[in-house]
């Protein structure tokens, strides 16, 4: 199998995955809505997961796909806890703006 061709195809998938990750990062820094910020972390998870599967294919090693299942677990746990925290904050102050909570700055 042509190794450089494989590497270039892998590079294409890594391109998509890093663009997804960076879009999630930019969204996390840029948006002011708490829920959208957590949605952007899920976007970063998508990029990471795509890189894992692409490397698993490139190395013919299934552990990358197994790791995706663990990432899914952590994403589900994170979504549950983060959204519970958002609900808690929203009941104290009916806004989702992060700057409304700026008094938590150290």
């Amino acid at each position, binding site marked *: 199998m042509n*190794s450089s061709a494989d590497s*270039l195809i892998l590079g*294409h998938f890594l391109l998509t995955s890093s663009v997804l990750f*960076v*879009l999630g990062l930019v969204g996390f820094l*840029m948006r002011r809505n708490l829920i959208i910020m957590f949605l952007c972390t899920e976007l970063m998870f*998508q990029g990471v997961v795509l890189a894992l599967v692409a490397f698993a294919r490139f190395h013919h090693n299934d552990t990358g796909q197994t790791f995706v299942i663990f990432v*899914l677990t952590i994403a589900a746990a994170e979504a549950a806890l983060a959204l519970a925290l958002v609900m808690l904050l929203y009941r104290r102050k009916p806004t989702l703006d992060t700057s409304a909570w700026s008094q938590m700055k150290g």
Partner: protein
Amino acid sequence: MMPYGLYIASVLAALALYMTAPRRGYSPARLGMLLGAMTLGGLWIALAKHLPDLAGQWTPLVYYYLFSVIAIGSAVRVITHRRPVLSALWFVLVVLATAGLFVVLSATFVAFAMVIIYAGAIVVTYVFVIMLASPAAPDAVGDDSPTYDRAAREPAAAIAVGFLMLAVLLTVAFEPLVANPRAAGPSDQRVLSRDLTQRPPELTPEGPPEVGKQAASVDNIERVGLDLFRGHPLGLELAGVILTVSLIGAVVLVRRPIAPEAAESPRDTDVRDE
């Protein structure tokens, strides 16, 4: 391999995203999307010149382009849309396109798991919370969404940081990589045939599998299952513990009573003044 092209593409994509970012007043969002699409297309065309002859196997690459365009375009809409519910729905499209990319990479089990768990469970939770926690918008069609959804916070700095990182990542991604022989998992031919022949007989009612069953003939789900349960039993247990802890934690957090004096908001003070 042509890192300058990657840098130029990163800068152009950063400009495109800056135009698309939500802000007050006039925002050239359509122009930004056009510039972003042209950047991505130009980068792909420049990279396609280096692709070797694929001997007629163009179909996976075509699907790669298709699903990548959908994923990246929807991701841009997720981070720039002004209405949170629609952001969550665009995120579903990102998940579906990523699952399509997984099928292209012949990781079918993970693809279906992503669709079921992400699009089916996690995003539904997000949509629930968005609907519960959105400020009352009597007419959500017009541009009366809250200010914090209409204007981005420090978009220039965020985009500069993000796309600096993208340039670095792309430079690494297009380094010619050689598959590390030690990274090629032992879950190939040898271990797989060992795992298959060592199954308890009550699990294989169709009789003992033929020794030396080809690794290629084993399903993707079978390979992932073997790798998960043979290779990572401790991780599996820990994942269960984490899920349980987060379940209990979410219930405890939401059930906590809120002290009434803590509820300070402009709306509440107005009520108190009256």
